């Protein structure tokens, strides 16, 4: 098993190297004059030249790349032009907010998606199946930013049931940061008010973010369950007189969730990207919101750091999925 994990880790290295080269090209080569871009619109020629020298932009490309690698290795991404603080610090503070949101969305999608998919498979070719199909195709066809606005319109503005934006009502102090997850931190600190408030803030964004994942998970569960239901051992157990739902719970589901687990892993990367949109609409103080601010204000250092971060998270999640697969299905470990 250890060897399997190590091999998986090694496979990521070329991808990460590629990611570094790609981001380097994005920042240093695509803009016509990166020094002018860094200096801003009102800079004089002398200032641009100074920045060019200061950032080593007058050096050959391979020297610049080596310097860039060194900076990345030390997690030194410089200072954000937008917040005037070190980028690494900004990210450290904002990452828990995004993780809380994406994990909540993923949990919701999994807890609802697996039962939905199972029901649709059991009632194959009847109305639950048709309903699920429309729903799952619709779930990925909906524009998240629009859906978020419509939810705000209905539940926050018209009905006033849920808060409109943010992570916590203004005036409420955040619980002491241990994990950075407000839900966990407020529980640890025993702050029931903060917990309820944070939860009510989480509902709309997490629901919006979960839609696409929910559609995908329920689809893959349905396909998996349907395939398992046709296996001989299921027919055998059925002939033995097992009650149908017990059979599904005990034998079928375990044999059918592999594909869905893969999707859960792959979806995590997509969720982080989706968070860019959802966080912008709900003013959620996470990485996504930060990314959009950085892109809109042409804050190159932040753009670079965030792209790298997301690429790395994506690669790590993929390894994790492979490892989980290896755990569920030992045959996969032997393969290579």
């Amino acid at each position, binding site marked *: 098993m250890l060897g399997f994990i190590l091999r998986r880790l090694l496979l990521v290295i070329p991808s990460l190297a590629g*990611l570094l080269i790609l981001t380097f090209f994005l920042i240093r080569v695509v803009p016509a004059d990166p020094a002018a871009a860094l200096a801003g619109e009102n800079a004089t020629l002398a200032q641009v030249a100074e920045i060019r020298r200061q950032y080593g932009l007058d050096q050959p490309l391979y020297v610049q790349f080596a310097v860039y690698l060194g900076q990345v290795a030390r997690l030194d991404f410089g200072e954000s032009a937008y917040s005037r603080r070190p980028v690494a610090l900004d990210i450290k503070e904002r990452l828990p907010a995004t993780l809380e949101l994406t994990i909540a969305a993923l949990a919701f999608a999994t807890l609802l998606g697996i039962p939905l998919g199972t029901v649709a498979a059991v009632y194959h*070719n009847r109305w639950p199946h048709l309903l699920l199909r429309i729903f799952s195709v619709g779930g990925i066809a909906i524009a998240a930013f*629009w859906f978020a606005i419509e939810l705000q319109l209905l539940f926050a503005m018209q009905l006033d049931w849920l808060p409109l934006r943010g992570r916590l009502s203004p005036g409420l102090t955040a619980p002491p940061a241990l994990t950075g997850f407000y839900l966990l931190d407020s529980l640890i600190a025993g702050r029931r008010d903060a917990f309820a408030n944070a939860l009510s803030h989480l509902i709309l964004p997490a629901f919006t973010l979960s839609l696409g994942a929910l559609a995908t998970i329920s689809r893959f569960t349905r396909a998996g369950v349907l395939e398992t239901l046709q296996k001989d051992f299921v027919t055998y157990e059925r002939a033995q007189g097992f009650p149908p739902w017990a059979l599904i719970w005990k034998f079928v589901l375990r044999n059918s969730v592999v594909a869905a687990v893969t999707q859960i892993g792959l979806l995590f990367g997509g969720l982080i990207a989706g968070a860019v949109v959802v966080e912008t609409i709900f003013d959620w103080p996470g990485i996504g919101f930060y990314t959009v601010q950085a892109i809109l204000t042409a804050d190159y250092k932040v*753009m670079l750091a965030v792209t790298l971060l997301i690429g790395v998270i994506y690669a790590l999640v993929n390894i994790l999925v492979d490892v989980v697969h290896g755990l569920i299905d030992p045959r996969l470990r032997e393969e290579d």
Partner: protein
Amino acid sequence: MLVLAKFGKDKAAVLGALIVLGVVIVALMAPLLAPYPGDVAASHLLSRLKPPSFEHPFGTDNLGRDILSRIILGSRGALMIALMVVGVAMLIGVPLGLIAGYYPGWMSETIMRVTDVFLAVPQLILALALAQLMSPSLESAMLALTLTYWPFFTRIVYGEARRLKVALFIDALECIGAGKARILFLHILPNSISPIIVRATIGMGFTILVAAVLGFLGMGATPPDPDWGLAISESRQYLPDAWWFSTFPGLAIFITVLGFNLLGDGLRDIVDPRLRRSR
């Protein structure tokens, strides 16, 4: 014909095809269908933010322009962007996938590693970053979307080409001395066309969605374009009073993308017999 008959049985796919057909017709005849074709750039400040009525079925926007007309006129842009992006991405991605799948060795490795890197960064973020670096405009947005979409075609075609490379008929062609280019483009390509079509159909819907996000964030279409995403972004300051301003453009996006997705889904089921059984 067998394919058509199978397709006809799939109600969801037929619905998708009808929606796509409808959107294409609307886009082609937009200036004729829109009740107020002049409302691309005009403004009627006296009738601003009027709720849906007989004259304006979807209401009017912040400049008093008819929202229905702008949605109809906006369908052209949405389809054009999607067609260009998917088309060019296909022109880049398909040959690369063919080459990588057919020729083993360093070239194949290089192409596939580059593909992996592009696939490792979420498209939306890559597209946003690229669009910003190239200075925000509709053209940059389209170029950025293309640059982020070609790897999907490369991945699919690569798999198909590898599978077909060891097929008996390719062996036979090699034996009778058929040229590499001939084998690649006249034999492997036509045999992998179905997954390409499926991916392109789904890609159309996907591109319309991402382009709407770019428009919404101000990185794509610019005012006074009747862009759907842009309209939703403009509507935000007039909520909750002018609910129609955000609702109808969003529905237009939803229905269009739904059409492409249902169609792509149905096509995939026909193309991939393994999935058909589970339907």
